[in-house]
Each structure stands twice: as C-alpha cells, then as structure tokens.
C-alpha cells in the first residue's frame, strides 16, 4: 500500500477531479455532523424544558 499522490497539493487537485471529490466529502461530513449535533442539542433543550416546567409548577404551588 502506498500513498497515491506526490504531494498534498496533488491530492487536493485529484488529477483535475478535486472539486468533485472534495465537495462530496465536505457536504457528507457537514450532513453527518448535523446528524450528531441536532439530537444532542434537542436533548439538552428537552431537559431544560423539564426543569422550567418543574420550577414553574413549584412556584405556583407556593403562591396559592
């Protein structure tokens, strides 16, 4: 197994196909990142909402 390119510049160029290959890679990585970040953020938000509801409920109990 050997590295197929003479240099990193050659790897970026991909023999003229660089734009195609790297666009595919970057878009794929961006979508994959979204698939991880989105549910993590959503979980955090869901837990925050639970805390808000609980504190609101206990506050209204104290008032009555």
């Amino acid at each position, binding site marked *: 197994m050997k590295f197929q390119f003479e240099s990193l510049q050659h790897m970026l160029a991909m023999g003229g196909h660089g734009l195609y290959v790297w666009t595919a890679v970057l878009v794929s990585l961006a979508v994959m990142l979204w698939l991880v970040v*989105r549910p993590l953020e959503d979980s955090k938000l869901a837990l925050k909402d639970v805390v808000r509801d609980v504190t609101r409920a206990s506050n209204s109990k104290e008032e009555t």
Partner: protein
Amino acid sequence: MNWLSNWSPSWQCFHRLGSPRWFYQTTGLWLPWLSLLAFVLLSTGLLWGLGFAPQDAKQGNSFRIIYLHVPVSFLALAGYYIMAIAGAVGLIWKMKLSYMVMKSAAPIGAALTFLALFTGAIWGKPTWGTYWVWDARVTSMLILLFLYLGVLALQYAFHSNEAGNKASAILALVGTVNIPIIYKSVDWWYTLHQPATIKFTSAPSMHPDMFHPLLVMILGFYCFYTVALFLFTRAEILRRERKSAWVIELAMARDKS
C-alpha cells in the same frame, strides 16, 4: 395478559426492550464506545480510500467518491428496513419505544438518501457528463427520499401522537415496495447506473486494494448510523417521557451540575 409477562425470560427481555428508560440508560453506556469505533473506522476508511487506494483506470480520481456514495446509499436503504420494522412492531404490539425509533429513523434516512443522491450527482458529472438523469436507480432513490420525508411529515400532521404514529407506520410499510425496486433497478432497466459492485452471492467486481477501504467505510457507516439512531431516539424519549419521574430526576440533576 399477566401470564405473558411471567411466561418466559424472552418475554421479559422483550418488555424491558420496550421500556424507554431502559433504552436510554443502556444506550448511554454503549454510545461512547460506539462513537469511538465509528470515528476510527470512518477516518481510517476515508484516508485509505482518498489517499491510498489505487485510482480507477477509466475514471481516474473521481471514482474515489465511491467511498462515500456506496456506504451512504447502503445505509439509506438499510435504514428504511429499520424504520418499517419499527413501525410494524409499533402497530402490532403497540410499543411506544418502537414508534420513537421509527420517528427517529426518518430524518436520518432522509439525510443519508439526500447524500446518496448528492454524491451520485457530483460523481455523475465527470463520469456520465451530467449531474442528473432520470435513470431507474436514481429515480427510485428520489422516491425513497420522498417516502422518508412523508413519514416525517405525517408525524406532525396529526394532533394526537397516536394517530400520527399509526399513519407514519402504515406509510413506511407500504413504501417497503420501493426497496426491492431500488435493488433490482440496475438489472431490470439497464440504463446508466452501473450494476452493484458488491454482491453477497459472488466476489466483488473490484480489486481488493480498492475494495478493502470500501468495506471499512461501510462498517464505519453502520456504526455511525447506530450512533445517530440512538441519539435521535434518546432526544425523542426525553420529549415524550417528560412527565415521568426518572426524566424529571435526570433533568434536575443535570441542572445542578
């Protein structure tokens, strides 16, 4: 139905699997390891495929898109099975967790199907001379994207969760018809898309030096899919179980720290 739960250990297992709390806790233990495995496999496979695999004799370096296109398409299809089976289990056994898995599989499947179409389009330009053709494989994959989006949309189209779940599950099951069409499209209508590179029945039509990194990428994407499905399902569990004692406890503990 009480006798059923005492009937055998496998039924107990089934019931425990159906418990959102059990799912949340168990996947919490697995996630770090699974994420690490996915990361290692995907970075190894990508570096290997993009830098070390020999270039294709006819296509040159544009063929390297295969290392994303094939695994992403694999999981776009496998994910549909998972969504449809989860929908069926929900319909038959009325298992809440199963519906949550179904709902979580929809955005992931849609994202992966989009990527399959997108990487395919980019690969098509230097290879076929065009970004898009109404080829049988491409068109049936576009239908797959609409099925995923349909399942997602139905979830929000009803006021009650129950009705939305049932409608989504039925659409998911009906849409299963599309899956064998996608698989067979390259053989039935031999238009532009090349036949499958990997078959279970015969050796791959690819040099081992090119095939091994692809295999690593496919394994990596299976792990990544599982991670994403767990993460989405966990978020869904927290939303749907927000009134239950264990979620409140978890939220308060997180809030303090």
